[in-house]
């Protein structure tokens, strides 16, 4: 084997603390290395051209690049090798930047370490095999989990692109948080007017199957061939028969059911259609509130339903869908502000969340757009808005900035003034975060044109006083305490991961951060991908986002799914396990530990043997470590390759 070694300077990133020339010189001493050099930027066009040229000149059949982490540029250099006619797997990287030059201060020690890492890479490369990717068939269908604005956008884009889409929504209607908003910033246009048509498009699109009131139960399979089992929860209504006429809700005697859609500040009936624009426009029964389902008597809805759609005996139903890609768009939930004792911990009726306030502002809300205090129904005059409730606060485990609260608070102060010209809004803020198109102008308008009084500081306590609330806080710009008497306090509660996000991530086998938001493949370069091939992210499930960003990410995820499924077959990663039948004694230990069920026991010449289903194998190597004979070997990470690295280091 002829091996070439390229030691990258990465400008001064590596060369600053590693003697790259000395590393290249040392590499020439390693077995089968016929060429070694240092290069300014190995990944640059001239850098890659140098590698291609050396492969030709020195008849190299393997290349080691010592530069940054393989997680950055392994794919880049593999393509370089392919351009020069080599197999992409005849390549190894030594990470001498993130693991050496950036973390070690002693140049001599760094240089030694870099040279040894190159030695390890050379020894591994000497045992690399020319692996070839296989091909497998794929299902040209996409599942979108979550029907908020991000999921809707992703579903529509995929469906317009010709893919069959299965859209799964947990609530009885799609629309997500956006459907609860009155207006949107910074244009102050009506939220349901711009979302509504998209929701209708979902309902009418021939390529979209919508499962509302449904959740993902389990996920098997792999990119191109996922089998997702969806639990369609009982609505107690046959949705095929239901016309959405609303007769049932009009007759339902259980009229004091807390209204989930209205954030529990209004009441609804046990059977209901959550809001007028709901998609699907179908009634469903809240089993905890329904008199028939809890006490066995009533059935008023069944009597009035013109199509006889009520089914009190309906059960959850499991359906399995085969899809090639999955887009997770499960959104976010709102922070539970009752953790803040200083804001009353939920004891004061007129201290409400911004989303509740949004429902008060909305013409379709419980007050039909009139701002009324929940306690006594009076119109408030002085309203205090408190920002960063559950954001940027380490003490309650929410150190991150939700990012959109500054904007919606500004919007709400403007709407407040529009609704009640005599009102006065006060906003306690930490910093105003308004880095978007027309965003900062918008917050300035709230202050300058709409007279919202912005006070930079935190609130220390809210105390009831004479039927109003005394809001005590600090004005850190003036350096003094302030006290404001308010009729209503609106808390800009931050976003947190949707309930059940962690469980869903585990089903999808994707990672999530400590707060439950799904982890993207790379924070900059793979913002909608995940580390599980074929699973993409859209919207706030990946981190709090405003509407434009969610829509953009929904579209981006759709583009990723479309490009993945534009092919008829997918190439399988050849870095999977393989069983040497001659060595296998058929003990089945590998089969018992495989996390993916990728190993089946077959009979070969009358003997039991293990066999890898290559399209199912994900390449973890658990089987290789379990096989006592070493018959199962994870390609590209074989026992001998790893032993070679160990031996290179310390023999």
């Amino acid at each position, binding site marked *: 084997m002829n091996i070439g070694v390229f030691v990258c300077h990465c400008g001064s990133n590596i060369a600053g603390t590693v003697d790259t020339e000395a590393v290249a010189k040392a590499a020439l001493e390693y077995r089968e290395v016929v060429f070694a050099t240092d290069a300014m930027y190995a990944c640059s066009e001239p850098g890659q051209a140098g590698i291609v040229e050396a492969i030709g000149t020195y008849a190299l059949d393997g290349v080691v690049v010592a530069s940054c982490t393989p997680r950055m540029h392994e794919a880049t250099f593999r393509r370089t090798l392919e351009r020069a006619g080599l197999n992409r797997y005849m390549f190894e990287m030594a990470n001498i930047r993130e693991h050496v030059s950036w973390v070690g201060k002693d140049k001599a020690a760094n240089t030694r370490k870099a040279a040894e890492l190159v030695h390890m890479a050379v020894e591994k490369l000497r045992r690399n095999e020319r692996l070839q990717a296989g091909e497998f068939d794929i299902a040209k269908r996409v599942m979108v989990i979550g029907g908020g604005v991000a999921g809707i956008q992703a579903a529509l884009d995929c469906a317009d692109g010709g893919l069959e889409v299965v859209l799964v929504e947990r609530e009885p209607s799609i629309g997500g948080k956006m459907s609860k908003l009155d207006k949107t910033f910074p244009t102050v246009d009506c939220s349901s007017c711009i979302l509504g048509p998209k929701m209708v498009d979902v309902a009418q699109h021939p390529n979209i199957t919508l499962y509302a009131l449904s959740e993902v139960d389990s996920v098997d399979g792999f990119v191109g061939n996922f089998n997702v089992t969806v639990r369609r929860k009982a609505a107690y209504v046959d949705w095929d028969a239901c016309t959405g006429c609303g007769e049932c809700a009009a007759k339902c005697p259980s009229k004091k059911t807390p209204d989930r859609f209205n954030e529990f500040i209004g009441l609804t009936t046990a059977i209901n259609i959550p809001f007028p624009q709901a998609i699907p426009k179908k009634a469903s029964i809240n089993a905890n509130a329904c008199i028939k389902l809890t006490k066995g008597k009533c059935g008023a809805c069944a009597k009035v339903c013109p199509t006889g759609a009520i089914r009190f005996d309906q059960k959850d139903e499991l359906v399995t869908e085969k899809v090639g890609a999955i887009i997770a768009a499960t959104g976010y939930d709102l922070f539970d502000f009752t953790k803040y004792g200083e804001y009353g911990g939920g004891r004061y009726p007129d201290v409400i969340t911004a989303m509740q306030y949004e429902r008060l502002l909305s013409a379709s809300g419980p007050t039909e757009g009139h701002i009324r205090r929940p306690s006594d129904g009076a119109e408030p005059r002085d309203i205090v808005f408190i920002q960063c409730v559950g954001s940027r606060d380490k003490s309650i485990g929410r150190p991150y900035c939700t990012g959109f609260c500054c904007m919606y608070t500004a919007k709400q102060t403007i709407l407040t003034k529009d609704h009640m010209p005599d009102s006065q809004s006060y906003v306690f803020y930490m910093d105003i975060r308004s880095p978007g198109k027309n965003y900062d102008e918008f917050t300035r308008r709230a202050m300058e044109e709409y007279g919202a009084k912005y006070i930079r500081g935190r609130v220390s306590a809210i105390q009831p006083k004479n039927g109003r609330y005394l809001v005590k806080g600090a004005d850190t710009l003036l350096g003094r305490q302030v006290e404001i008497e308010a009729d209503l306090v609106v808390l800009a509660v931050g976003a947190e991961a949707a309930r059940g996000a962690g469980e869903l991530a585990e089903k999808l086998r994707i990672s999530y951060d400590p707060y439950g938001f799904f982890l993207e493949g790379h924070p900059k370069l793979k913002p909608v991908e995940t580390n599980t091939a074929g699973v993409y992210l859209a919207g706030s499930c990946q981190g709090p986002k405003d509407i434009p960003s969610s829509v953009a990410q929904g579209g981006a995820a759709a583009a990723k799914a479309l490009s993945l499924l534009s092919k008829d077959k997918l190439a399988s990663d050849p870095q999977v396990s393989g069983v*040497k039948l001659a*060595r*296998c*004694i058929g*003990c*089945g*230990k590998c089969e*018992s*530990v495989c996390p993916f069920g990728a190993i089946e026991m077959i009979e070969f010449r009358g003997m039991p043997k293990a066999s890898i289903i290559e399209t199912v194998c994900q390449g973890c190597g658990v089987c290789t470590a*379990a096989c*006592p*004979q*070493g*018959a199962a*070997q994870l390609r590209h990470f*074989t*026992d*001998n390759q790893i*032993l070679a690295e160990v031996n290179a280091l310390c023999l």
Partner: protein
Amino acid sequence: MASSLDELKTAIRKALPGLDVVIAWTAGPDALSHAPLFITEEADVARIEWDPRCSQNLAGYLPGLRGKKAGIVAKGCDVRSIVELLQEKLIDREDVVIFGLDCQGAVDARSARAALGSSRGVRDVAIDGASVCFSVNGEPRFFSPGEVLQSKCFGCAGADAGLCDHFAGERGLPPQFGNPPESTLERLEAMDMEERLRFWETQMSRCIRCYACRSACPLCVCQDHCAAQSREPHWVDQTDHPREKLMFQAIHALHTAGRCTECGECERACPMGLPVMTLKRALNRRIKDVFDYQAGIDPNQTPPLFEFREVETNIKEREW
């Protein structure tokens, strides 16, 4: 034990027509340990021996007989190996007929030879409560159990007769001999780290790499495909160095971790008398502590390294 032997023979005679082979013990070339006997016809049954010299664990022959109907005579400890083989589906329960026996203890031929000075003239061995009696040229010679029995006989839990298809002799607990003699593991634990390394260096320098330990092990089912003698993967170097020999012992220990029943075959078979069961014993102790698991008890269990719990109650992970 004489009556057990008769019972056993009767049972085997009765079962033999339905079986391809029955494995038992018979007098072999060594007067201190009996040899395996493969019975295919009734005439062989008369040659069966049953006394404390039946030390060898015959379970190791079973995987090789897979596909045949095999009977096996087994002491309580041997049954544990059979359970382990069943657990790993290396033998089929319906093809195996187990003839259990009421063992009183088994002789460790090496120590017995050392105690007696020679194995010549030994005619019979019997265990009588607290002492072991060898009849040598007609003269009885008495030894304490610690001098001449296998270490596993101390604290023996006896045969789980429930697993046996036939059982000859008295059911119930075997004799208890009190504390076992000090083990190599205990001796090692009194040493510092470097002394331990040097201990193995010395021991392993005597290893002749015959792999008898492996061949005797009832759970070393890889046999011809042993990782120790392969270049793909190349775990062990063929140089004659104690390091490589100890590496093999580590491989053996880790491959049998959670599976080894401490039957002692590896040490019994070692021609150099090396304490090769020590590593396995150390691993078993840990597996008992951490996973509350003992090999060879329940045929329906999974060995601990082939399953996991999301929350491992006994594992204390290091906090950095």
